[in-house]
């Protein structure tokens, strides 16, 4: 199983996520050599691979931990997801500022993924969870087991 092509799809996902949050120059890259298969397994009888690795990216919640010190480019999740649908919305920054826009804080995302091959080589479910390391806390470590349990209980439904 080649991880790299599947990771490219994940990178685009993260880039789209940041972009839809209003980040004009989203940064996302794989920490070289970090991704590895840590377990070959099955998921609902489909072959699956548990992988772990590190991405270098940016936070979508601003440089600070307080609302007033961060940014919230789109007021609602609904507006943000509308952008996923290809609907181009004017940047709110063109409106009178309600909140100051902060820089998109760089951080490391530790990722745990379950890559499940469905039926053929070209059909995949990519289940992954990312935890940020920043502000002196390792959120990945805190919730790894909980996330792994949640991942393994995602059901894949055909039809």
């Amino acid at each position, binding site marked *: 199983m080649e991880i790299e092509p599947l990771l490219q*799809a994940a990178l685009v*996902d993260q880039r789209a996520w940041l972009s839809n949050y209003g980040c004009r120059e989203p940064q996302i890259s794989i920490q070289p050599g970090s991704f590895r298969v840590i377990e070959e397994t099955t998921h609902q009888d489909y072959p699956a691979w548990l992988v772990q690795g590190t991405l270098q990216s940016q936070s979508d919640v601003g440089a600070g931990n307080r*609302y007033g010190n961060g940014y919230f480019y789109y007021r609602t999740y609904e507006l943000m997801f509308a952008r996923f649908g290809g609907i181009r919305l004017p940047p709110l920054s063109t409106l009178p500022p309600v909140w100051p826009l902060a820089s998109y804080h760089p951080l490391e995302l530790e990722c745990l993924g379950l890559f499940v091959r469905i039926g053929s080589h070209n059909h995949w479910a990519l289940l992954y969870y990312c935890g940020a390391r920043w502000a002196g806390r390792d959120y990945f470590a805190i919730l790894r087991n909980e996330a792994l349990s949640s991942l393994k209980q995602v059901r894949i439904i055909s039809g």
Partner: protein
Amino acid sequence: MHPISIAYITAISQVLSLSAKNQALNRLNRLGLHLLFTHIPPGWIPGPHPADLTPAWQMAGLPVEGVGYSTLGTIGEGAQTSTASGRPRLTIRPGWVAT
């Protein structure tokens, strides 16, 4: 901002969101695959939202068709948080991929 303006933005955004969600559901139907989240840990936000990522993948030059579910889970300092509260978030973003 005036309350009427907020209500207007909210109404418009809900319509746009519904359109995006329908697009994602159509894509899932086309692929013949869905995901069901059977276990959401306490304190996590139970709000996986399907989004059609096919245009983003294709713009990046990847021959990929699929849907991403965002976002599931937010826990900071042991308490439930939201994006607006500005705390680090944990996410699960499953996506269907067909090349």
